[in-house]
């Protein structure tokens, strides 16, 4: 699409015949905003497809004026806006024509209206979508003309909707009723105010719309529309819950191993997440000018795991090892370490946040319903979280290392007696937990800020999830994370973000009072230290 536009424009501009309205083009460059809008309408009414290229250039901010001429400037090349002829020299002295939101909106629909007759289906579909958002009364003839020729069902439906909104005010009674019915079949919230407008009462109690039958139709359509919109709301709420839950799970999964299985209160857990995010930033830097920038995550994911795991293992060897069984000292020591890590990153990378760009395939979203857009970045993270969970589970349940880890955590003395190298298993298990924190950091870098304080925001949430889920239980962590995600989002849409956070905390306090062992308690013969 993007590439196609300038080509189209060039092709159009290259044609020497000047059929565009000279006065209108002049107004585009020199008139005030009202005059500009009138000029845009005049160009649309003329219906010359060449105007689409010019208006698109205007919307892209490529229009400028020099003396009495209006120019289109593309990079270093200049074109005369009226004739489309390429200029030999681009004048140095020129003023850009400022585009604001109002003009941009007018231009968007104007270009779309002109493109409705494009031979390319893709272009027509995009144009019809744009028009469904807000077409202008003057475009009705163009829309009708396009409707007469259109064969594609999807474009037709959009155009019918547009025509319906336009005819709602002006058409004959039959066409208005038909228009109301068509509106009732859409799931576009932009149509709601139109229907509401029909049902409005004036101050003196009379209806704005005198025809009772029309009002009844509008009422019916509104009910149908509201029902459909409510489903959209529920869907997006459910997705928001899953998304927040998956993020909480990623952040807490590493802690479920280091705290849940090993019993180390690691206050530096958040900082290991932060290290993962910074590793992603560094890896992104290596790929920046190469052709494979879109795939830098493939390298960043293992790098983040390894970097955080190495830092974690070094921590375990140097500090935590000497403090096993002394939770208070561990808490203080790891808290100190977290401060040191934050300051170290601050000196290395600066106090400002660093910019981690999404690969292009992760920006934007998929539109599952009109107006319900699920962002790709969040969808990818949900699947990533599931994959990390599956990997961790397999590692713990199906491998020798996992067996050792479970053995050592359940009964250290016995494991040691049967020949398990407990010290090494501790280091590896701690490294694994920290590595998973690194993976979380890699994922978080895609949706949030990457700064030295990144981890601070997640440490409390992570502990909350692990404690709520039940210490020592992977499954508990999963349920707790998803449960908290849903609860948070549900309350947020109800009572606002601030109260939701408080309510969730209050709930956890009550829950832990009633059930200190969390949702799932370890049953069996585990020896408590």
């Amino acid at each position, binding site marked *: 699409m993007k590439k196609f536009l300038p080509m189209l424009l060039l092709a159009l501009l290259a044609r020497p015949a000047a059929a565009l309205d000279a006065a209108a083009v002049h107004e585009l460059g020199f008139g005030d*905003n009202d005059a500009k809008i009138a000029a845009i309408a005049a160009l649309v009414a003329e219906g010359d497809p060449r105007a689409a290229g010019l208006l698109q250039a205007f919307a892209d*901010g490529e229009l400028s004026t020099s003396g009495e001429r209006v120019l289109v400037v593309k990079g270093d090349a200049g074109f005369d806006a009226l004739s489309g002829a390429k200029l030999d020299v681009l004048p140095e002295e020129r003023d850009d024509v*400022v*585009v*604001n*939101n*109002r003009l*941009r*909106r007018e231009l*968007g629909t104007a270009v779309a209206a002109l493109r409705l007759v494009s031979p390319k289906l893709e272009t027509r579909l995009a144009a019809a979508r744009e028009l469904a*958002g807000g077409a202008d009364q003057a475009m009705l003839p163009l829309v009708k003309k396009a409707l007469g020729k259109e064969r594609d069902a999807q474009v037709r439906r959009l155009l019918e909707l547009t025509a319906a909104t336009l005819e709602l005010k002006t058409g004959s009674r039959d066409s208005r009723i038909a228009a109301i019915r068509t509106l009732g079949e859409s799931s576009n*919230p*932009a149509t*709601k*105010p139109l229907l*509401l407008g029909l049902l409005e009462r004036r101050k003196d109690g009379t209806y704005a719309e005198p025809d009772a039958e029309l009002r009844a139709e509008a009422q019916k359509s509104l009910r149908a529309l509201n029902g459909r*919109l409510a489903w959209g*709301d529920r869907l*997006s*709420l459910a*997705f*928001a819950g899953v*998304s*927040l839950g998956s*993020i909480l799970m990623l952040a807490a999964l590493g802690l479920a191993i280091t705290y849940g299985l090993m019993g180390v209160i690691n206050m530096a857990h958040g900082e290991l997440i932060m290290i993962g995010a910074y590793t992603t930033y560094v890896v992104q830097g290596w790929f920046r000018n190469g052709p494979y920038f879109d795939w830098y995550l493939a390298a960043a994911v293992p790098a983040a795991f390894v970097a955080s795991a190495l830092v974690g293992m070094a921590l375990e060897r140097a500090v935590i090892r000497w403090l096993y069984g002394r939770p208070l000292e561990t808490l203080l020591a790891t808290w100190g370490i977290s401060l040191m890590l934050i*300051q170290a990153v*601050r000196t290395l*990378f*600066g*106090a*400002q*946040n*660093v*910019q981690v*760009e*999404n690969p292009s395939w992760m*920006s*934007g*979203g998929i*539109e599952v319903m009109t*107006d319900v*857009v699920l*962002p*790709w*970045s*969040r969808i990818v993270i949900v699947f990533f979280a599931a994959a990390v969970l599956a990997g961790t589970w397999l590692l713990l349940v199906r491998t020798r290392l996992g067996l050792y880890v479970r053995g050592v955590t359940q009964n250290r003395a016995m494991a040691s007696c049967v020949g398990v190298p407990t010290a090494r298993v501790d280091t590896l298990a701690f490294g694994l937990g920290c590595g998973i924190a690194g993976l979380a950091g890699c994922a978080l870098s895609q*949706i*949030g*800020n990457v*700064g030295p*304080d990144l981890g601070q*925001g997640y440490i409390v949430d992570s502990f909350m999830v692990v404690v709520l889920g039940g210490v020592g239980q992977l499954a508990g962590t999963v349920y707790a994370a998803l449960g908290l995600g849903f609860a948070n*989002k549900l309350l*947020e*849409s109800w009572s*606002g*973000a*601030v109260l939701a*956070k408080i309510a969730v905390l209050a709930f956890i306090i009550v829950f832990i009072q009633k059930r200190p062992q969390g949702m799932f308690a370890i049953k069996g013969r585990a020896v408590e230290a």
Partner: protein
Amino acid sequence: MKRRSFVKALTLSAALATAGLGSQSLYAADKTIKVGVLHSLSGTMAISETALKDMALMTFDEINKKGGVMGYKIEPVVVDPASNWPLFAEKARQLLTQEKVAAVFGCWTSVSRKSVLPVFEELNGLLFYPVQYEGEELSKNVFYTGAAPNQQAIPAVEYLMSKDGGGAKRFVLLGTDYVYPRTTNKILRAFLHSKGVADKDIDEKYTPFGHSDYQTIVADIKKFSAGGKTAVISTINGDSNVPFYKELGNQGLKATDVPVVAFSVGEEELRGVDTKPLVGHLAAWNYFMSLKNPVNTAWTKEWATYAKAKKLPGADKPLTNDPMEATYIGIHMWKQAVEKAKSFDVDKVIAAMAGQKFKAPDGFTIEMDAKNHHLHKPVFIGEVKADGQFNVVWKTKGPIKAQPWSPFIPGNDKKKDEPEKVASK
């Protein structure tokens, strides 16, 4: 040059001798004058305040190269209150009592300013505060070089309601949960009422500091906008802005449908954001880096050179913004006032500040109000461009006077437009 500063120093010492000031200890023997810089260099606010510290140091350098203030070289004392509000008060006390600084440039959040205010009033210090704020305050010891609500928030809302701004009928007031957004929104609500907007068309929402998940909020804004032409007024502060704008882009909420005007988002805050989906969203400030005038060109160039020479983070893409400009203006006005008063004495400088003029990078010669300690500033409204800069779409004809006591808060009409305590004790 040397000769002139020598003469100046002579006159100064003569003046001092005749005046017989008790504050002689202010001046070190080697002809330097200490001033304090009180900005968080670590913690959550470091992201915004570090640039102000660097801008202050650059301005001191510039003044020192031109002979200093009355021949005295400025010796900056930089302290780090670490985004910790009580620590701000402690550090301010240290600057005033131990370092005996002549003036302090600092603070960003209103809560930090409220924390140091009693210290400055008790010790009769001098603070220059460079950030837009909610008003409702006027201290004899503080000069406010940022915007009051009528120099930023109110014009922005008027623009949104105008034909060119999209003629908004419904408003979402979205902010971080602390004093500045709450007070600003209180003023805006009263202002909207005065314009005939009903309460059902105003949706006020707050998020905690550092909030990063804006899915539900953006979805709610979408839903709200189905009821009529809607605009969002954002007083989100700090790095929460990045996830908010990312979510707007991802969910496809375009500026042509629902424009967002922000009061705390400038060039620096957009550094971490992919701005292509944000084109057309608005910000209201008293300065934009993209303004075209000779003073701004020289100033941005000076900053770029300084940032490169000092190897500051982000020097490859040097940015200036509104609070940096306010810092720069504040320091220069202080210098002019000292030279007018021919003294570093706080009371004399305060008296000399009234009516100071300075040719600012915003393209105007702006003036310190004779009474209310605020600047007369021009207001600009800019739309985000694809390169993270702003395109000015509306501006006031000239500088406008600040109203620290907003007329939209009941009871303010009785308050005087000058500090309670008169400058001469």
